[in-house]
Every structure is written in structure tokens, then in C-alpha cells.
């Protein structure tokens, strides 16, 4: 008991720090958030600490009291389970594409290939936003694995373990090890990224996300900005 | 190479264990039992390990049952499992996961009939299906011995077999040893009584070397080292006890300090034998007439070998020899207090 009493305050209390914000972000924002954070810090002097994960997983952590100021989710419906401050802002959209390892070794040419038994296809598990969106795409996929995050799908493709996979358009732009399986139009189902403040201190960051600087950065990384199409 | 090798066991070689260097010349004939005596750390157990093959020689050669089994010079080394040696280590090393019967029959050379015969001969048939953990010390010793002889080895090695042994077990084991046929036996012991009663020959090992090898009488009467003198100089008399008295094989009546019944060995330290020119009076109740056969200087003492109804050796100071005017042929009275005599069941 004595030991526990000594340890608990150390473990539980990290204390609020006015010079930094903790942002919980959907894993598909991994490539863009550092650039956004840099721009935000240059503007306000407030540093951003990012924690990435599946949106559902992060929601669970926030519900259990994880110390975050901002939540950037790929599924706005998840916010219904949380207590947030102020307005929720949709700040970007993304869309799903079929991607293959660079060079397309399995010669995937169309959606019909994704139903082939000899083809190794990986997608997101249906419990995470990219997986839910994949299910709405309307193509038949014989998946060999349902990964717990879109980054895991991306890594399967980059390592050449899978022949094809469904990832975000932004992932294809960011990861040199993968490419579009075939030219695909910017078609929905789309993922809409929503930002919510968990603490009052975070409101300025929410506002920043719709600023021209932030929107430009998002567009640069392949996100669509403005209202979803 | 010499072609003709005699003996069940012929060793002339060296081996190293830590700081100890064994340098031993030892031959044991078929059917012969040799008792190996020596102070702690003299290398007795290591010598047995050389014979089993668990400790390879670093020089010289070892022949067992006429076959060369270890000769580093020629690169010859026969693995333990190909040697005809039965080993009963001091801690017995029974296999705890096997029954008594499986232990005794462990050797691929042991037959089922032989195992059954041994179980009966050693009185452990009732334990056949028990584990060694269910055996008493004496029973475990019998199992270990039966296991070693079940393979009918040419050489049997016993390391302190009588340690903490009950009398029944001792009798059964002695019986089995006496019935060894052509088997040669090497018996490590610290008990001079056991050595003198069981062995045909005593070998004294000190600091890795054999310092004396001879019959029990030879070692007793002509010890060559202080250790041998202290150990083998003890008088051992065979007698039949009946209460507080015992009759020796020589026909002398001995009064005992403790009651005993049946065949016994009486052990009398030479220093406890007092010599007198005239019959002593007072407490000693064991007084015998004797003739001085021989006087031997033994370091700072003189050992007086006596003839008479009791073949005793007395140990006295040079001064006493002068006062008593002892010389071969002198007639003396030998007196021993009953309390100085220790009685061992035979």
C-alpha cells in the first residue's frame, strides 16, 4: 500500500502545461500533422504533442480520461460519445483508393482482381473508420487480413506482403513504396475529418485548422478541403 | 606394449583432479577384495572414477579384465558404458524416477532372472515396485549394490558402503561380497574394522599415492606412515559375545564395557594396552599373560607385538621399554580396561 501510495501521484499526474497541447489524431493524419503543428507553433508559440491511433481506439482512451486537449477523428460520429468544448469543425476530407506495392508486382488492373483467391488483399478492420468506409465502397474484396489501422495496411503494401490494399489517397501520396493500382477518380465514400476541443485551451487550435495556412498544408498532403463532395 | 596382462584390474597411471595429482600403481586379481584406505582428500573416490572411466588418465595405462581401456599415450579410451565395472558411489545415485526393480535391472547386461535373484538374496523383493525414496538407508544401499552386480562386472567398486548401515544390511552385503566368484572388488572405506574383516589386502592411499599395500596383518604390524599407524594399528579381535563377556577365537575370555550377543569384532587401541612385569592389581579386569614377539619403533613410540592367547599390539613410550626391560622373549602381563574396548557386530 505504501509503495502504491508513493507511485500513484507520479504516474497519474502529469499536470497541465500552458506551453503545449496534446493532440490525439487519427492515424491517417500521421504525415500531415507535424507540418500543421509546426505552423501552429510558429503562429502562437504553443507546441503540439501528437498521439496517433485508430479513431475508435483513441475515443476509448479519451473516455477513460486520457489527457488530451484536441481530438482529430476520421469518424465524426465517435464524438457523440465524448464531452467536447465548443463547436466541432470538419476541416478536411480524404477518400479511399486501391493501392499496390510500387511496380504493381501482381499486375492488379481493376476492381475485379480484388476478389481473386490467389491475390493477397488487405483492408482495414470494419471497426475502424477506413474499414467502415471500405465496406461502403461497393466492391467485392476477398481480404486476407483486416488490419487494425490504415497504417498497418500501408505497411503491408510497402513491405510487399500484400498484393493490393485499400488505403487513403493521402497515404499513396506520402508513401513511396506504394502506388495507385489503376487511375481512380476522387470518388466517395469519403472520410471527413472532424476536430473537437476536449479542453478550453484547445479552441485556438480548432480555429487554426480552417485557416488558409492550415488548409494549404492539408491540400499539399493530398487532403481535400472544404465541404465533402 | 606388453602382451600379457594379469589381474582383473591393472593400473599404472596418473590423473589430475584440481590440485590433486593421482599417481597410482595398483593391481587387483580376479576374486580378490582390496580395501582402499586413506585420509580425506587422498584421492580414493577419484581413483574409483578413474577405474569407471569418468575421470580419464593423463598418463600411463589402465587394463580391466585383460583389455586396455585407457592409455592417453596411444589415444586409447574406452567409454564408461563399454567397461565391465560396477560402481556403488557413496551417495548411491539411485534413479529416483524408476522402481527398485527397474533400478537393479537398469543395465542392458542385467537379465530379469538375475534381477529377481538379487532382489531375493538381498531381502528387498518386497520393495521391488517401490521408488528409492521409499527405501531406508540400508535398503537403498542394498539396491545400489544389487544394481552394480546385476550386470556381472569384472570389477566392483564400492565407495564407503557401510556408512550408516544397519546390521541386517551389513550382513546381507557382506554375504554378497563374499560370493563374488572371479569378480575383483575395490572397497573404499574409512573403517579399519571393515577393511580388515572384508578385504584380502589393504591399500593405503595418501596424497594421491599408494603408501602401503599389504595384508591386514602386515599393515597393522608394520605401518609405514603416521596415518597407517593411527588407523591400521588398532587391534581387531574376532570373538563371540554373551552379555558382558566374549570368547575370542584364540580362546581368551574378554570382559566388555557394554553388553553384546553373537559374533563380534573387538577393537582395542594399542595405546590402551598396558604392560606390566608383575600381575597388576586394581581396576583392570582384562589381564592376560603374553610374550614379547617384536619391538618396532613407530615414530616417537615403540610398538610392542605380543604373542599369547591374544595377538595384541601395545604402544608404549621408549622410557617404558627401558623401565620394563622389554626385549623379544620377555614375559609380561597385558592389561586392558573393559571401557577401552569397542564392540562391533561381525
Amino acid at each position, binding site marked *: 500500500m505504501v509503495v502504491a501510495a508513493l507511485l500513484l501521484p507520479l504516474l497519474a499526474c502529469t499536470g497541465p502545461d500552458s506551453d503545449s497541447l496534446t493532440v490525439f489524431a487519427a492515424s491517417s493524419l500521421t504525415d500531415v500533422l507535424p507540418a500543421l503543428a509546426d505552423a501552429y507553433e510558429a503562429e502562437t508559440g504553443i507546441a503540439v504533442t501528437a498521439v496517433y491511433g485508430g479513431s475508435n481506439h483513441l475515443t476509448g482512451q479519451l473516455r477513460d480520461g486520457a489527457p488530451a486537449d484536441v481530438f482529430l477523428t476520421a469518424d465524426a460520429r465517435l464524438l457523440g460519445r465524448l464531452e467536447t468544448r465548443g463547436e466541432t469543425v470538419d476541416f478536411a476530407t480524404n477518400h479511399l483508393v486501391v493501392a499496390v506495392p510500387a511496380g504493381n508486382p501482381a499486375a492488379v488492373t481493376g476492381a475485379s482482381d480484388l476478389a481473386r483467391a490467389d491475390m493477397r488483399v488487405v483492408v482495414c478492420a470494419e471497426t475502424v473508420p477506413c474499414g467502415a468506409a471500405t465496406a461502403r465502397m461497393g466492391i467485392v474484396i476477398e481480404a486476407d487480413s483486416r488490419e487494425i489501422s490504415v497504417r*498497418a495496411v500501408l505497411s503491408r503494401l510497402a513491405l510487399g506482403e500484400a498484393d493490393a490494399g485499400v488505403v487513403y489517397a493521402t497515404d499513396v501520396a506520402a508513401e513511396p513504396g506504394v502506388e495507385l493500382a489503376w487511375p481512380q477518380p476522387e470518388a466517395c465514400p469519403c472520410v471527413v475529418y472532424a476536430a473537437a476541443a476536449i479542453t478550453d485551451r484547445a479552441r485556438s487550435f480548432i480555429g487554426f485548422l480552417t485557416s488558409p495556412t492550415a488548409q494549404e498544408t492539408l491540400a499539399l498532403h493530398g487532403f481535400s478541403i472544404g465541404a465533402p463532395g | 606394449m606388453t602382451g600379457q596382462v594379469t589381474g582383473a584390474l591393472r593400473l599404472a597411471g596418473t590423473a589430475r583432479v584440481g590440485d590433486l595429482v593421482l599417481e597410482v600403481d595398483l593391481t587387483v586379481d580376479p576374486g580378490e577384495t582390496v580395501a582402499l584406505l586413506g585420509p580425506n582428500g587422498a584421492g580414493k573416490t577419484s581413483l574409483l572414477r578413474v577405474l569407471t572411466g569418468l575421470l580419464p588418465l593423463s598418463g600411463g595405462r589402465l587394463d580391466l579384465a585383460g583389455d586396455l581401456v585407457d592409455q592417453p599415450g596411444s589415444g586409447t579410451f574406452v567409454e564408461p*558404458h563399454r567397461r565391465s565395472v560396477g560402481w556403488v558411489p557413496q551417495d548411491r545415485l539411485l534413479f529416483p524416477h524408476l522402481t527398485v526393480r527397474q533400478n537393479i535391472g537398469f543395465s542392458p547386461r542385467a537379465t530379469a532372472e538375475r534381477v529377481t535373484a538379487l532382489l531375493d538374496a538381498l531381502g528387498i523383493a518386497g520393495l521391488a515396485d517401490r521408488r528409492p525414496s521409499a527405501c531406508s538407508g540400508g535398503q537403498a544401499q542394498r539396491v545400489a549394490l544389487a544394481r552394480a552386480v546385476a550386470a556381472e562386472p569384472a570389477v566392483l567398486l564400492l565407495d564407503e558402503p557401510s556408512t550408516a548401515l544397519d546390521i541386517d544390511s551389513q550382513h546381507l552385503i557382506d554375504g554378497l561380497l563374499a560370493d563374488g566368484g572371479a569378480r575383483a572388488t575395490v572397497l573404499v572405506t574409512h573403517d579399519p574394522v571393515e577393511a580388515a574383516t572384508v578385504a584380502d589386502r589393504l591399500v593405503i592411499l595418501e596424497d594421491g599415492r599408494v603408501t602401503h599395500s599389504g595384508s591386514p596383518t602386515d599393515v597393522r604390524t608394520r605401518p609405514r606412515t603416521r596415518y597407517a599407524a593411527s588407523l591400521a594399528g588398532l587391534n581387531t579381535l574376532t570373538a563371540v559375545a554373551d552379555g558382558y563377556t566374549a570368547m575370542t577365537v584364540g580362546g581368551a575370555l574378554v570382559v566388555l564395557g557394554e553388553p553384546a550377543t553373537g559374533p563380534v569384532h573387538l577393537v582395542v587401541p594399542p595405546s590402551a594396552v598396558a604392560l606390566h612385569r608383575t600381575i597388576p592389581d586394581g581396576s583392570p579386569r582384562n589381564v592376560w599373560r603374553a610374550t614379547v614377539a617384536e619391538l618396532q619403533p613407530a615414530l616417537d613410540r615403540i610398538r610392542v607385538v605380543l604373542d599369547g592367547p591374544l595377538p595384541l599390539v601395545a604402544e608404549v613410550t621408549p622410557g617404558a621399554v627401558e623401565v620394563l626391560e622389554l626385549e623379544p622373549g620377555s614375559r609380561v602381563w597385558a592389561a586392558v580396561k573393559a571401557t577401552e574396548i569397542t564392540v562391533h557386530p561381525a
Partner: protein
Amino acid sequence: MRPPRPVLAVATVAVVFLTLPVIGLAQRTPWSSLGDLLGRQSVVQPLVLSLTVSVAAALVIVVLGTPLAWTLARVDIPGRRIIRALVLLPMVLPPVVGGTALLFALGRRGLVGQWLDRWFGLTLPFTTAGAVVAAVFVALPFYVIAVEGALESGSDELEQMAGTLGAGPLQVLRRITLPRLLPAMGAGVALAWARALGEFGATITFAGNLPGRTQTLPLATFLALESDPEEAIALSLVMLTVSLAVLIPMRDRWLPGRRPSR
């Protein structure tokens, strides 16, 4: 001996610490609908797969681990300490890293995996065999430690004794070494099996996640936590029950100091 109070007190704290989460789980369990939950295909399928994978892994571990433990304990090989450290590496390596390392080695483009694929058409990721490989990788050290420890502490005097009785090296191994090693092997298998049953990180990174093929109980539980917490609790209870059902009798039977003494 009267047990010293401070020791008992700390021991009590430790037991409470270990059982509290289990009590938490039990307290959140929807007992009324549990029967329905347990009958679901989404619970039964991962259970069957987990049992298959963990038992297969345990078998592979005994076959691979026993000679390895024997060699580490008994053979004077150069660099033995380094080899031992390498063998224990999976115990400290985060399982996800272990799974990634397995991909680099045995994946379709991996060091060895590319040749397996090219020559035999054999690929491990996304297969049940791959899940077994991941489980073996993380659980093997537990078995090796248990068995190696027993081989070191149990002196080889009995084996020498058997040798002097005419048993050759293989006979000694079969009739003395292995039978005497059984308790340690049992304990090692129990530990390794339990570790394999609970394996998550290496499995999901190396073998992937597909119901019926690679989605073991821990994977199913993790995913259910986000979509259907009640099912996740049911899955956890199944895992807990299966482990206890196997480990409690095993402990009585195999672990040293627990055997009836005469």
C-alpha cells in the same frame, strides 16, 4: 514457523493487485446474456483457432526447445552467453517489433521468406501457420529457460551412473535425462503455452487478422473492444477460463515443490 507479518502483508497486496482486474472484468460481465454471447460464431471461432494455434506452437516449442536447452546447459560451445542472450531476446523485444522482424525474415520479401515463396510457393503471413510461427517466436524462450535451468541444477551424476551401468549416450538421454526432465518440461510447456495463447502483437503484425485463419482470441478481443465491449468481455472470460483450466492442474502436476511428498 510463524510467517512474518510484513511478508504476508505485501503478499496480500500483490494478490489483490493481480486479481483486481479480473474482478473488474467479472463485474462488467453481462451475465444474463453471457450464454448467448458465448454461442456466437464470433466467439467460438477465435477460441477454436487460439487453441489450435497455441497447442501447435507448444508442440513445435518442445521439439525445438528441448535440444536447444540441452545444448545451452551441457555443451561447451564458444559464445554460449551470447547465444543464450539471443535466445531470450523475444522476451524483451516488444511483440510488435518481433512481428515486424519476422516479416523481414520470413515475409514474402523477407531474407528467407522470399526463397520459401520462390521455391516452395510457401508464404507464412496471412496463414494460420504464420500465427503459429509468431507464437513460437515469442513463447520459445519461456520454455528454454525452464528446461535449461533444470538441466543445470540437476547434476549429471545420475547420467554418469547410468553410463557405468552400460547405457550409451542415447540410452542415457532416453532413460535418465528426459524422464527426469519431465517436470521442468511440463512447467516450461505450461508457461510457453500460456504466453502463446495470449500472444497479440507479433501475431497481428506478422500473421495479420482474418477471422477463422489468423484472428486469435486476443485479436478478436481487441477489435471487439471498439465495436462490441460486451463481446470483448465474453472473449476475455473465455481466455481466462481456458488458461486457468489448463494451468491449475498443470501446476499441481508439474511444478516443483507441489508434488505430494512421502
